[in-house]
């Protein structure tokens, strides 16, 4: 469970997230939508302690993030907007292994997790491929594998479909559906609900740092009014 309690985050004079409360139960597939600058990315970066709130708190599985940052970072896998910026090693295997290595796991366990994570994104056996040689869709999937290898309960993806063509987007969606099926809760940050809303249990729309809408199946014109591209546009 991800619980956000009265969270406020300011950048100087600007309030990016304004007194937001939200909880994402285990196993839920939640779309966090909103136009650019609505505070989506700022909000999710509190889930694993990349940002600290000015007030309020985030609890991961009942534990405040700041009291156990390691648990929050291992428990909430985060995939960044441009996956090229999320890679820390030159080859697929070394990159996916980075998280489990930092958790101090033994080598056999690390190898198992790397193999499982790559398998989950249909990149099995690609350990020695160079990151620089991957296609956009493969990069996105390897970035997901890097997060999965930490064995998270929750997976947060920031605009995962940016710049992907339809087959690549389809492949990422299918993998997210599989992961959701396997019990991981998924939060997709997006300004565009095409494709992904079919998988979502819930759509939360942020606007000017506040929750403007929280519904299982929001009406398209309502979404459009809030600056979000609706599912059937």
């Amino acid at each position, binding site marked *: 469970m991800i619980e956000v309690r009265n969270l406020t985050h300011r950048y100087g004079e600007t309030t990016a997230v304004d007194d937001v409360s939200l909880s994402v139960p285990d196993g839920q597939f939640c779309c966090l939508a909103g136009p650019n600058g609505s505070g989506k990315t700022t909000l999710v970066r509190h889930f*694993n302690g990349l940002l600290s709130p000015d007030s309020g708190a985030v609890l991961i599985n009942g534990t405040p993030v700041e009291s156990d940052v390691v648990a929050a970072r291992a428990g909430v896998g985060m995939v*960044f907007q441009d996956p090229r910026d999320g890679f*820390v*090693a*030159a080859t697929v295997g070394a*990159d996916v292994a980075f998280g489990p290595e930092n*958790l*101090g796991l033994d080598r056999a366990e*690390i190898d198992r997790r790397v193999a499982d994570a790559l398998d989950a994104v249909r990149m099995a056996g690609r350990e020695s491929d160079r990151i620089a040689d991957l296609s956009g869709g493969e990069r996105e999937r390897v970035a997901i594998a890097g997060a999965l290898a*930490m064995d998270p309960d929750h997976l947060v993806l920031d605009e995962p479909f940016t710049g992907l063509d339809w087959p690549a987007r389809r492949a990422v969606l299918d993998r997210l559906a599989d992961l959701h099926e396997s019990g991981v809760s998924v939060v997709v940050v997006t300004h565009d609900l095409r494709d992904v809303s079919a998988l979502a249990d819930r759509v939360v729309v942020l606007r000017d740092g506040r929750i403007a809408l929280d519904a299982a199946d929001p009406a398209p014109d309502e979404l459009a009014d809030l600056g979000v591209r609706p599912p059937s546009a």
Partner: protein
Amino acid sequence: MIGYVPGDSLSHRLDPRTKLAVQAAFAAAAFAHTTPVGLAALTVLALGILAASATPLLPTLREYRAFAPFLVAAPLVEGATLGPPWFVPGDAVFPALASYRVVLLLLVSTAYVRTTTARDSRAAIQRLVPGRVGVVLGAGVGFVLRLLPLLRADLSSIRDATNARLGGERSTVERIRLVATTGLRRAFLRSDRFALALQARCFAWNPTLPPLSFSRRDPPAFALAAVLVASAVL
């Protein structure tokens, strides 16, 4: 460009720490014995190392042709005098031997580079340098390897944009300034995002190190290194 080449030569199968030791010992011996006899003996050894590393001699030498002007210039400049007889051959002998020494060292280090993955080198650094310094240096070398293609692409797009905008008209200082200013902005952006990625994946002072292990092939190579070091200091 010289880089790792997959293979199964003897050197490929040695532990990177062993190869670093042999390399360093070879360099020590070469500096201690920069004499015709010493360098002749080391030439035989260097050719042996190349053979054990699946590294071809002539293509390797060609890779380093940019160094040739320096290697030729050193003995010429040292032998030259400002007045008759203008050139003293005796003064040029040692620099010429030193230039030859550089050639041998380039050959031996190429054998290391071609047979050792960056991951193995990184693991060796992290084991040889203790504590947090080892983490920064070992992990840092891995990060440099990852960032190289990213920043190459960034800088080449900057260069193209600069050329398109400026043509060949601006001064050298102005060109350097433009490339560096844009490059610096990009570097900050990349490093901020890279730091976030490290944090999200629990970048730690006490990670599990990449695997490395000595095998029965390593002791003889270490013995070679010991002999070379002994020859250098005795």
